């Protein structure tokens, strides 16, 4: 036994030495920066394009390496907060909110103005995603809205007419019921759904309701309009079976990241439509040639779509700040934008590249023609980014809203109770945070004062200055209804 112990120690030492010496050397002459993102051929192409662009701009060479574990926000957070984060990070979902708030993201406002990647370079509606309190913390590497992708083959199979470009919730319900009845004759084991989800935030916005009020100081989800929407969602899920319940949906999404099988259900015809961005093409293209169309989500009232962009940001403690910031500049270059247009990874961040023939009508994919134009048009006209508040972390909003909606759908709560609970919990969260953070409290008090003035003016029917409104939806809504003061032209 002692012999085998000694042998194993010897073997291990040998193996460790081998492993250690075969790690690619860190010492190189050119600086190396790490980019936490996906490691696939598209990203590798991006790295190659970056090298090309650096050469064309006559900038000193830099090696860009990809660190693939970006699915794990925990890792980015822990490493970032301890001073050893990666130089360039992709920010997803709630990270775009949380990470800059910790201070670990470099404020690039000045660099942006100097090097040309300020918000003016991209879609104006996208700005709230990477601008926080007037300071810029990154730049989008793509843009896009989410729309309903239609599998024309599925509609044709059941002889159900396709939806129009713009439709109301009632039309959605009627068409949905028709489809579901045709596709699910009695005795069907595997139910076929109309679509995978309906965008609740967009439905609310149609009725004029956002997550927060104009100054983002109060959560407004306890409004009766939300009860309406929740009740509809419940009916569509539980009674009409137009969409799978969250439970059914999550069970169907049988992998960690959760998106994979939505697409396979779309291609196999279990979803007639799916609500997702233009990047769906990346997944759909390898799976076959499907006749595709894109239409707006069914919304009553104020037409709006969900605009978002994947932001790239720079780590505040990066050892190569200058080079990392250059990467953000690269995102405005033709090298990068043409690449995005070609691989259909959402819309290129610089709008003019979404107008090229190659983007709108890619030669290799005639089955997609028409969809790109719709996405580009919607991004320009109806896209509004998600409502956020500096007083509530987006992850909390997301989680509370999701859990309470699930509870309501499963019948454990009425829609009214769920809406009230959402409002209560999120407003309690706001109070909690301002209680603990004096700087936030100051901001809150300032904004509450402004909110009072807004309410007074609205009640009197007087216009409101645009600068008073923080929430992007309310800004767009007010603008569309002419409730804003005439803006002085700069």
């Amino acid at each position, binding site marked *: 036994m002692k012999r085998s112990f000694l042998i194993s120690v010897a073997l291990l030492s040998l193996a460790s030495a081998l492993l250690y010496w075969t790690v690619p050397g860190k010492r190189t002459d050119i600086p190396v920066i790490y980019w936490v993102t*996906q490691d696939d051929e598209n990203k590798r192409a991006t790295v190659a394009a970056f090298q090309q662009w650096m050469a064309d701009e006559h900038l000193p060479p830099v090696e860009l390496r990809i660190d693939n574990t970006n699915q794990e926000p925990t890792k980015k957070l*822990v490493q970032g907060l301890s001073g050893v984060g990666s130089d360039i990070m992709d920010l997803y979902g709630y990270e775009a909110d949380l990470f800059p708030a910790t201070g670990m993201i470099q404020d690039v406002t000045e660099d942006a103005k100097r090097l040309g990647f300020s918000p003016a370079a991209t879609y104006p509606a996208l700005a709230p995603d990477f601008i926080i309190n007037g300071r810029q913390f990154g730049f989008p590497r793509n843009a896009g809205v989410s729309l309903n992708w239609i599998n024309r083959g599925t509609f044709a199979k059941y002889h159900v007419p396709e939806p129009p470009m713009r439709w109301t919730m009632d039309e959605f319900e009627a068409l949905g019921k028709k489809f579901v009845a045709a596709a699910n004759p009695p005795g069907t084991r595997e139910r076929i759904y109309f679509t995978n989800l309906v965008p609740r935030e967009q439905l609310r916005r149609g009725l004029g309701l956002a997550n927060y009020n104009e100054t983002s100081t109060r959560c407004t989800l306890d409004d009766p309009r939300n009860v309406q929407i929740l009740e509809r969602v419940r009916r569509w899920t539980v009674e009409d079976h137009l969409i799978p319940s969250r439970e059914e949906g999550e069970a169907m999404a049988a992998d960690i990241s959760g998106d994979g099988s939505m*697409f396979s259900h779309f291609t196999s015809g279990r979803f007639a439509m799916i609500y997702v961005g233009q990047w769906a093409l990346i997944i759909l293209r390898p799976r076959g040639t499907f006749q595709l169309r894109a239409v707006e989500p069914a919304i009553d009232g104020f037409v709006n779509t969900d605009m978002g962009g994947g932001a790239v940001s720079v780590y505040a403690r990066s050892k190569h700040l200058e080079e990392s910031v250059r990467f953000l500049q690269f995102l405005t270059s033709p090298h990068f934008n043409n690449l995005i247009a070609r691989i259909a990874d959402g819309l290129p961040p610089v709008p003019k590249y979404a107008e090229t023939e190659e983007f709108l009508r890619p030669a290799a994919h005639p089955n997609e023609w028409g969809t790109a134009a719709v996405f580009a048009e919607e991004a320009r006209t109806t896209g509004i980014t998600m409502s956020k508040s500096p007083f509530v972390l987006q992850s909390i909003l997301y989680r509370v809203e999701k859990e309470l909606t699930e509870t309501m759908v499963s019948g454990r709560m009425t829609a009214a109770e769920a809406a009230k609970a959402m409002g209560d919990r999120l407003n309690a969260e706001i109070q909690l945070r301002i209680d603990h953070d004096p700087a936030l409290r100051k901001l809150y008090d300032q904004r509450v004062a402004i909110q009072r003035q807004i309410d007074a003016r609205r009640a009197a029917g007087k216009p409101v200055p645009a600068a008073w409104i923080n929430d992007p939806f309310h800004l767009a809504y007010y603008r569309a209804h002419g409730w804003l003061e005439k803006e002085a032209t700069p």
Partner: protein
Amino acid sequence: MAETHPPFRKNTAHQAQRSGPWLSLVLVALSLLMIAPFVWMALTSFKTLSESSDPEWMPGAFHWENYPEVFKIIPFLRFAANSLVIAGWVTVLQVFTSALAAFSFARLEWPGRDRVFFLYLATMMLPGLVTLIPTFQLMVRMDMVDTYLGLVLPAAFGAFGTFLLRQFMLGIPRALDEAAEIDGASKWQIFWDVILPLSRPGLVTLAIFTFMGNFQSFFWPLVMMKTVDKFPLPVGLMFFDTERGQATHLLMAAVTMSVVPLIIIFVLLQKQLIRGIQLGGVKG
């Protein structure tokens, strides 16, 4: 210690009348139940991506090319080697230091012994999550982030091994110790020549547990490592889980392959375990 092998003592002697060919059936049935998910996993590794989400067990055709594909996407051998070496070191350190510590707790009497032992035990009761960030910051200060050492050291000194070996050592009759003591053996000699060989089943058991456990550890290496070449296997498997979806068929192929070295190690170690148990069957 004479290395004579006592005659093989079958505990099953008295049960021979009961078992028969039917027992094999029961065992086989249970085994099939246990490995059914693995059969599914292995079969899925031959499917195409869209088939991998289907409920059908069998792939339409056997896509053997999934396996070489795995090697193209990730440096599988490197990851596996990392895992094996890291787990190996953790096991060696854990077994060795725990044996020493367990001896101290089980056999030596010193003031405060039981209190310190309970402290050991108590440290296992705190969820590891909340010590993650303090530990990580400690690593930063020691400059061990993104190093192999940082993966080995924190894992090698847990209280589990000490607890397990102490229980094993408590079961060894003291008559042997006392005999050795009368012969004038020092404590170290008693440990090295008497207790340690008799604790063989415990040591091998701990080795198996530690190795398997560390091989599978995911969260800590995830947070610690940045250089891809140093990733252990579970973290490396994340490469199949992209933001665009999961390459299930390839992931299953990778997992199937990763099971193979573990099975080999287990088969080898369990022979040791059984031999040790038989040799250690001390008269009660």
